[in-house]
C-alpha cells in the first residue's frame, strides 16, 4: 500500500539528487520537464538494485533471480495499468517510448486496416511523433491526411468536427500540446469520432505525467505515453489499447518472447501483452517506471495537476508583464497544462536560452518537434518553460529576471 503524501515542491525537491547541483555557478533551475523530467532517487535506486541483486532475463528462466526479475517487471506493468485505469494489464504494451508506441499502431493496426482513399484526421498542434508516422502510412496505403485547425489562443476549432470526421478511419490527437500547453477535450472528441465510425489514438506523452488519466473514462482506443517524462527512465514507454483491438492486430516486431510455437516456416503468437514485445525487454527501465508510478501515486495526480496550475497561473501573470513578449497557448489555466511558449521582440529564442543558461536556468528553445505549428504561429522558434512537481514560484521569478538581463544585453 502506498502512503499518501502532500505535494510540497520544497520537500519533493529533496527526492531529486540532480536538483542539488549547480550550473554555471548557480543553483540549477530546471524548466524543461516537458522534454524529460528529472528522476527521484527511488527510481534510480530501484534500477540500481535490479542490476546489483537480481539482473536476469525474465519470462523463461526457472531459477530464482529470473523469477524475481519476471515478478518485478510484470508487477510494474500491473501498476501502470492501475495508474491509467486499464481494464487489464494485458492491455499495457511496453515499448521504447511514445514514438515507438504510435509506430506500433501504424505498422500493425494501420497497415491491416487503413483503406486506400480513407482519411486520417490529425491536428495542427501534433508533435512530429504523431504526424510523421501517419504521413508515412498515408503514402504507403494511399490514404489522405486532414487536420483540425487551431484558433489564436491555441485551442482546437471543433465547430465543424462532425463534418471533418466524415470518411475518417482514425483520429490521432495529442492530449496536451507539448508546445502550447493546450489540454484537448479528448472525451468529447472521442465520442464524436466513434459516432462517425473512426478509432481514436491519443498521444499522452504530456498528459500522463501531469494529470489524472483514465483510459476507460476517456473512451479512446489507443493511448501512448513515455516513462521518462513521468519521473521514470528513458527507454520505456507504453501503448495502451483495448484488448479486443490488440487481439485482432497482427504482431509488430517478430522475434523471441512474442511467439508461442515456432516451426521452420511458421509461428503462432504469444498471448497479450507479450505478443507485441519481441526480444529481451528493457527490464530495468520497466521496473524503474513501476517505481516512478508509485512515486507519483503517493501525491495523487489531482494534486500534481493542481500544483502545476498554480505555477501556470503565476507564470502567465508574471510573463505577460515583460515588455515585448508574445505568449502562445490558452490564457486560462483550466485549459493550459504546465508548458508555456513565448517569444521576445528582438531576441531569438536560442540567444535567450543561452543567456538564461548562464543563470543556471534550463529552458528549451526551438520548434519543439512541432514545425507545422511553428508555421501556423508564424514563428521560426519559441522559448518554452515547462514545470513539474519540483518547481517553485520563485523559479519563475528567476526566469523573469533572467529574461530582463537578456533584454539589457540586447538593448
Amino acid at each position, binding site marked *: 500500500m502506498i502512503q499518501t503524501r502532500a505535494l510540497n515542491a520544497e520537500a519533493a525537491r529533496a527526492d531529486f539528487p540532480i536538483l542539488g547541483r549547480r550550473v554555471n555557478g548557480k543553483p540549477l533551475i530546471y524548466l524543461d520537464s516537458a522534454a524529460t523530467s528529472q528522476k527521484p532517487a527511488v527510481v534510480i535506486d530501484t534500477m540500481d538494485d535490479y542490476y546489483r541483486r537480481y539482473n536476469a532475463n525474465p519470462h523463461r528462466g526457472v531459477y530464482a533471480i529470473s523469477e524475481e526479475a519476471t515478478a518485478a517487471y510484470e508487477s510494474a506493468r500491473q501498476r501502470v495499468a492501475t495508474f491509467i485505469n486499464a481494464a487489464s494489464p494485458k492491455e499495457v504494451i511496453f515499448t521504447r517510448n511514445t514514438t515507438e508506441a504510435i509506430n506500433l499502431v501504424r505498422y500493425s493496426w494501420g497497415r491491416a486496416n487503413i483503406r486506400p482513399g480513407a482519411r486520417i484526421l490529425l491536428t495542427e498542434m501534433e508533435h512530429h511523433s504523431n504526424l510523421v508516422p501517419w504521413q508515412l502510412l498515408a503514402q504507403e496505403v494511399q490514404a489522405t491526411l486532414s487536420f483540425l485547425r487551431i484558433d489564436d489562443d491555441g485551442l482546437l476549432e471543433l465547430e465543424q468536427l462532425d463534418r471533418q470526421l466524415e470518411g475518417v478511419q482514425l483520429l490521432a490527437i495529442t492530449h496536451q500540446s507539448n508546445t502550447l500547453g493546450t489540454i484537448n477535450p479528448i472525451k468529447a472528441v472521442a465520442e464524436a469520432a466513434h459516432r462517425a465510425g473512426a478509432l481514436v489514438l491519443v498521444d499522452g506523452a504530456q498528459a500522463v505525467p501531469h494529470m489524472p488519466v483514465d483510459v476507460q473514462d476517456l473512451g479512446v482506443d489507443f493511448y501512448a505515453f513515455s516513462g521518462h517524462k513521468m519521473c521514470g527512465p528513458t527507454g520505456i514507454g507504453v501503448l495502451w489499447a483495448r484488448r479486443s483491438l490488440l487481439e485482432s492486430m497482427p504482431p509488430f516486431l517478430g522475434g523471441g518472447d512474442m511467439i508461442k510455437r515456432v516451426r521452420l516456416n511458421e509461428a503462432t503468437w504469444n498471448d497479450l501483452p507479450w505478443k507485441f514485445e519481441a526480444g529481451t525487454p528493457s527490464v530495468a527501465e520497466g521496473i524503474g517506471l513501476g517505481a516512478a508510478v508509485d512515486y507519483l501515486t503517493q501525491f495523487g495526480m489531482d494534486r500534481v495537476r493542481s500544483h502545476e496550475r498554480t505555477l501556470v497561473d503565476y507564470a502567465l501573470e508574471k510573463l505577460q508583464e515583460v515588455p515585448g513578449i508574445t505568449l502562445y497557448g490558452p490564457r486560462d489555466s483550466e485549459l493550459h497544462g504546465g508548458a508555456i511558449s513565448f517569444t521576445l521582440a528582438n531576441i*531569438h529564442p536560442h*540567444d535567450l536560452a543561452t543567456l538564461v543558461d548562464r543563470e543556471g536556468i534550463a529552458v528549451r*528553445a526551438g*520548434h519543439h518537434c512541432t514545425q507545422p505549428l511553428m508555421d501556423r504561429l508564424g*514563428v521560426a522558434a519559441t522559448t518554452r518553460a515547462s514545470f513539474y512537481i519540483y518547481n517553485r514560484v520563485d523559479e519563475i521569478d528567476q526566469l523573469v529576471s533572467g529574461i530582463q538581463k537578456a533584454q539589457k544585453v540586447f538593448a
Partner: protein
Amino acid sequence: MSDDLYREQILEHYKNPHHFGELPDADITQEGDNPLCGDVITFYLKLDDGRLGDVRFRGRGCAISQASASMLTDLIVGKPLQELKTFPTKDLLDELGIQISPARMKCATLSVNTLRVALNGDVPEED
C-alpha cells in the same frame, strides 16, 4: 578566446550587419538554413574576374548566426574565388573570437557552409 558569447563586437554586427541587403545583378544567389533553430541566410555574390567583386546577405535568426554572416562578408569581399572555395571554418570562428558550444556550432557556421555551397555546389559540410 573570450567566454562572453555576446561580447560587444558580436552584438554590434547583429544590430548593424555589414553588407546587408541584396544585389539585383548577383551572379550567384544561395540560400542556407538551419531548420533546428530557424536561422536563414541568403548570400548574393557578384563575381569579378575570378574574384568576389561584391557581396550582400539577407537573413534572420539568432545573434550568433547573423553576426557570423556579417563578419564573413568582411573577410571574403574582394578575395580570389579559388581561395574562397575552401575558406576555412576556423578563420570565421577565430574572427568571432568566442567559445562556441556544440549546441550553437550550427548557428556559428551557417554562413560559411552556405558560402561553400554557393561556390562548390551541394558538398558535405566541413567537419
